[in-house]
């Protein structure tokens, strides 16, 4: 196992270099530079000013030199400073926006698990029933719904017309004046819509997946054996079938790790949430190279780590895999 881990970790390095190199080149090949937003089409900006800005950002050096400089600093975990006029460290800017994105994604994931797993199991054990067919249609519809559209509709209905839920942000203006419990409730009310809407798509996928796995598990020989042994149906389903069906879910959780830090820019601008999605979208538009690279590296690392965790935990859970 340790050997396997070591091998996988060693593999990560060339992968990371490949990712960062491709991203860097793509960003620099595309037209436009960080100096543009600050300077162009502004009568008060002079040529000298533009030259100065270019020098300050180090943009006059060739691409490979810029990449090498960046990589060297990355090796000591220095992600550099953002090219935006505030010049703050990249890590600071990302760290500032991460908590809310992670919170929403985590809550969403939990919601998905709590709802999707029982639905999947029940659908599988009652295959073909009205419940199964109805939930099939329901989750398919959920899967096919563009989330931003659903967000808009929910916001109009619950926020504007019914006034039950707040329409933007993560806390009210007088949040600081509330009691501890009040603050919690305030967060809950603000986060309700974003979490539920972003869970809908995942719900569909996860419950289908759970259903398929359960169906597969139930057909296995050991289930027939268990039934032949005279075990109650409950024991058969919940002790034996489900445990085996759950394992791929663990894999999914591992693979969901990078998604935890992924924010959707569309979503965030609809709900006026300050997440990483909008941060990176603006960074791309402004050609804020250090910030975009920082985000890509973070995402890539998390993906690789997530894959590793998923594989390792699968190996731990399933002795058959371990032996191979």
């Amino acid at each position, binding site marked *: 196992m340790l050997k396997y881990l070591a091998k996988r970790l060693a593999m990560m390095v*060339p*992968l990371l270099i*490949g*990712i960062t190199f*491709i*991203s860097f080149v*793509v*960003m620099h090949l*595309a*037209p*436009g530079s960080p100096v543009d937003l600050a300077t162009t089409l502004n009568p008060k900006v002079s040529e000298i000013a533009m030259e100065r800005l270019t020098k300050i950002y180090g943009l006059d050096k060739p691409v490979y030199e810029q990449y090498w400089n960046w990589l060297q600093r990355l090796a000591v975990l220095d992600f550099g400073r953002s090219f935006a006029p505030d010049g703050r460290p990249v890590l600071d800017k990302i760290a500032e926006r991460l908590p809310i994105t992670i919170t929403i994604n985590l809550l969403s994931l939990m919601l998905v698990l709590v709802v999707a797993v029982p639905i999947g199991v029940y659908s599988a054990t009652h295959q073909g029933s009205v419940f199964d067919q109805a939930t*099939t*249609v329901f989750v*398919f*519809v959920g*899967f*096919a*719904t*563009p989330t*931003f*559209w*659903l967000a*808009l*509709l929910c*916001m*109009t209905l619950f926020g*504007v017309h019914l006034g039950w839920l707040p329409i933007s942000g993560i806390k009210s203006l007088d949040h600081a004046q509330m009691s501890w419990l009040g603050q919690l409730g305030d967060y809950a009310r603000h986060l309700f819509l974003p979490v539920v809407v972003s869970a809908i798509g995942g719900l569909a996928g996860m419950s289908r997946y759970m259903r398929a796995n359960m*169906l597969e598990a139930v*057909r296995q020989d050991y289930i027939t054996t268990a039934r032949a042994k005279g075990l109650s149906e409950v024991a058969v389903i919940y002790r034996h079938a489900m445990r085996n069906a759950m394992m791929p879910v663990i894999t999914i959780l591992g693979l969901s790790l*990078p998604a935890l830090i*992924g924010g*959707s*820019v*569309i979503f965030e601008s*609809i709900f006026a949430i300050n997440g990483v*999605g909008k941060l*990176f*979208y603006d960074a*791309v*538009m402004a050609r804020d190279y250090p910030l*975009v690279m920082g985000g*890509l590296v973070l*995402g*890539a690392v998390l*993906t*690789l780590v997530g*894959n590793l965790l998923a594989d390792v935990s699968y190996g731990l859970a399933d002795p058959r895999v371990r032996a191979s």
Partner: protein
Amino acid sequence: MSVQPGMFGDFQDRLRTNRLAMAGAVVVLVLVAVALLAPLVAPDDPNRIDVDAILLPPGPDHLFGTDELGRDVLSRMIYGARVSLEVGIVSAGIATLVGVLLGALAGYYGGWVEALIMRFVDIMLCFPTFFLILAVIAMLEPNILNIMAVIGLTSWMGVARLVRAEFLSLKERDYVTAARSLGAGDLRIIFRHILPNAMAPVLVAATLGVAGAILTESGLSFLGLGVQPPLASWGNILSQGKANIEIAWWLSLFPGLAILVTVLAYNLLGEGIRDALDPRLR
């Protein structure tokens, strides 16, 4: 699992009895027909501007209302079907093509070829897909060709893995050994013998891929990075809906519903094909 003789008839039977999948197929066919016959079906010129008729609600003259420039929304949605379907099908086509090619090569040759290709797949999978597409489109230029190419070139990874897995199991089959001993070259074996038998899961992936591409395109159009004006796309009608959320509910409702129904149809069809191909069900 791969196709064996006699299965096609079974496949068709199973698919036909799956009512949901059939519903999906019918919807897809209707949509394709509407898209192809747009000039005949649309009640009005989708680009006819009428500044006296801005943002009118649905009524006898305009069944789905009008948009920010007084253009008929129903007509725009019919022509928008063209864009959505075109982007969906071509993108999924590109993704399938690239994925099949790379997956076949990886699965058949193994060794360093496989290692290289699968590492490339891993790298591509590390990128947050929508963000990558958005960045590239923003930097190149939003137009229908770029969009199709970029979506296609960022969604082939799943197909590649599938095809490689199929090839790994299929290349040990008797008929392959037989073909090889008869002197057939590698390429011939790949394309004439193994590939046809590996296509089943690819078909499913391609169908589902169309749905995904349509969703992505509508997201891009929604952000203003979709097809160029004055082309109508369901996503860009929706973005007008967002801007006018309180006064023009029809701009939000109808295109959203259209996307929903189309994606749903493709998903149901794809799932139906998957169920029909799985000999272990029922």
